[in-house]
Structure formats: structure tokens, C-alpha cells
């Protein structure tokens, strides 16, 4: 694979990661924030795949599989937490959960 293609793939990963970051910072809906975190994890996986493909090694795909497992575990716990917050607060607004009451 050419170097230019890898550079553009890394550029795509950077753009997707930036879009995910903007989503986390800009939106206050908890589900959309979790989806933005998924976008960022996916962009990290894309960077691994691009680097692994550049040098023809399978390590990039191994790292992508590990990121996949991490994303699955993270989204399961995150969605359970969101359900819990919704039962307690009755809203999906992240700013409604800004107080801790021990």
C-alpha cells in the first residue's frame, strides 16, 4: 500500500476522531454522547488498521479486535448506566446529572 493512501487513511481517522470529540463536547443527550465515544473508538481502530496495512502486518487487526471488545463492554455498561440515570432523573440530559448526593 502506498504511503499516500496510509496518510489519507490516518487523516480520515483524525477527522472521525475530531468529529467524535465535537459530538461529546457539543451534545448533551447522553445517548448521542455515547455514540460519539463509539465514533472515537472506531477512528482509533481505523488508525490501527491503516498502520497494520501499510507494513503488511496482522498486528493492526489484532489491536482492532481488542478495541472492538473494549467498545462492546463499554457500551453495555454505559447503556446500563444511562437506563439507571433515566429511571432516576426522568431525562437524558447530561447536565441534569451534575450533582452527586452520597
Amino acid at each position, binding site marked *: *500500500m502506498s504511503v499516500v*493512501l496510509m496518510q*489519507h*487513511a490516518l487523516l*480520515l481517522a483524525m*477527522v*472521525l476522531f475530531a*468529529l*467524535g470529540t*465535537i*459530538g461529546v463536547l*457539543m*451534545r448533551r*443527550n447522553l*445517548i*448521542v454522547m*455515547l*455514540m*460519539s465515544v*463509539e*465514533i472515537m473508538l*472506531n477512528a482509533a*481502530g*481505523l488508525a490501527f*488498521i*491503516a498502520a*497494520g*496495512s*501499510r507494513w*503488511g*502486518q*496482522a*498486528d*493492526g*487487526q*489484532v489491536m*482492532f*479486535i*481488542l478495541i*472492538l*471488545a*473494549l*467498545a*462492546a*463492554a*463499554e*457500551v*453495555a*455498561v454505559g*447503556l*446500563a*448506566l*444511562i*437506563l*439507571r440515570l*433515566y*429511571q*432516576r432523573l426522568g431525562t*437524558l440530559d447530561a447536565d441534569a446529572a451534575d450533582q452527586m*448526593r452520597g
Partner: protein
Amino acid sequence: MTIAFYIAAAVAVVATALVIINLNVVHALLCLVISFLAVAIVFYVLGAPFAAALEVIVYAGAIMVLFVFVLIMLNTGGAAIQQERHWLTPWIWVGPVGLSAILLGEFVYLLWRNPMAAASDVLVEPRQVGALLFGPYLLAVELASMLLLAGLVGAYHLGRVDRQGADEHGGKEQ
């Protein structure tokens, strides 16, 4: 063949931008699925067909189904009925359908042109990935399995329905 990469990359960026500017969560979810499918085509073009298949099956399939289930459970009542009315207007789904039609055309083109090999001159086969996963990375695989087990237990504990009604009193967690 690099043109397929750029088209898929453009579709991925547009779909991701639609995710973060879409006010409706279900529409954002639809655009996110399209974004993952576009990234899967990027993986295929980069010579990683196994990762592309996993992206479609796990990301666009399993994880998005989790989101859909939670959205079903969080049915927001009257607002949802208002949303249903807006969903029936045709212009809502024209954008996502167009993006996925581009992806479908690209997919058919890639398969028709060269069904066995990927676009890139470097092709990393699933065999190499598997040999590496259960060779040098065996400890990482075990750690990932422990992480998934912890995630399962944590999600079960958090998602359990509380019979004592501790939530309404805002009180003590067990």
C-alpha cells in the same frame, strides 16, 4: 481502486457529521450505522477484509442493536408520537438512503471487479490474524475476555430492576 477509498471516506465523514448534528436520536443512530458501513468499506480497501466483516457484524450489528433496544426501553411518550409524524415525511430518509446507496454501489463494484482480493496490494488474511491472536497476543485475549465478563456482570448489576423502590426515595444503593 483508490477512488473507492475516497468515496467511502467521504461517505463516512458526511454520515458522522450527520450523527453529531442530528437532533433526533434515532436518525443519528441510522447515520451512525451508515458511518460504520463506510468505515468497513475503507477497511476492505485497505486490505483488511476480516476487520471489515467484524466492523459490520459487531459494530453496525450488535452494538447498534444495543442502542436500539435502549431507545425502545426509553420510549419518551408524547414526544415520540410527535417524532413519528416527522418520520413519515419523505425528506428525512432521503439523505441516509442516498449515502447507503453510494456504499452499495461501491460494494457491488468492488466485488464485481475482483471478488477474491482486496484493493490494496497488501492483503492481511484472517489466518495471520488468528495465528497472531492465539500466539503472542494470548494474554491480551484473556484480558479482553475478563473485560467482557466484567462488563457483563456490571451491566447486569446496573440494569437490574430495583424491587425495593430505592430509586424513588433517592436513597441508598445496595
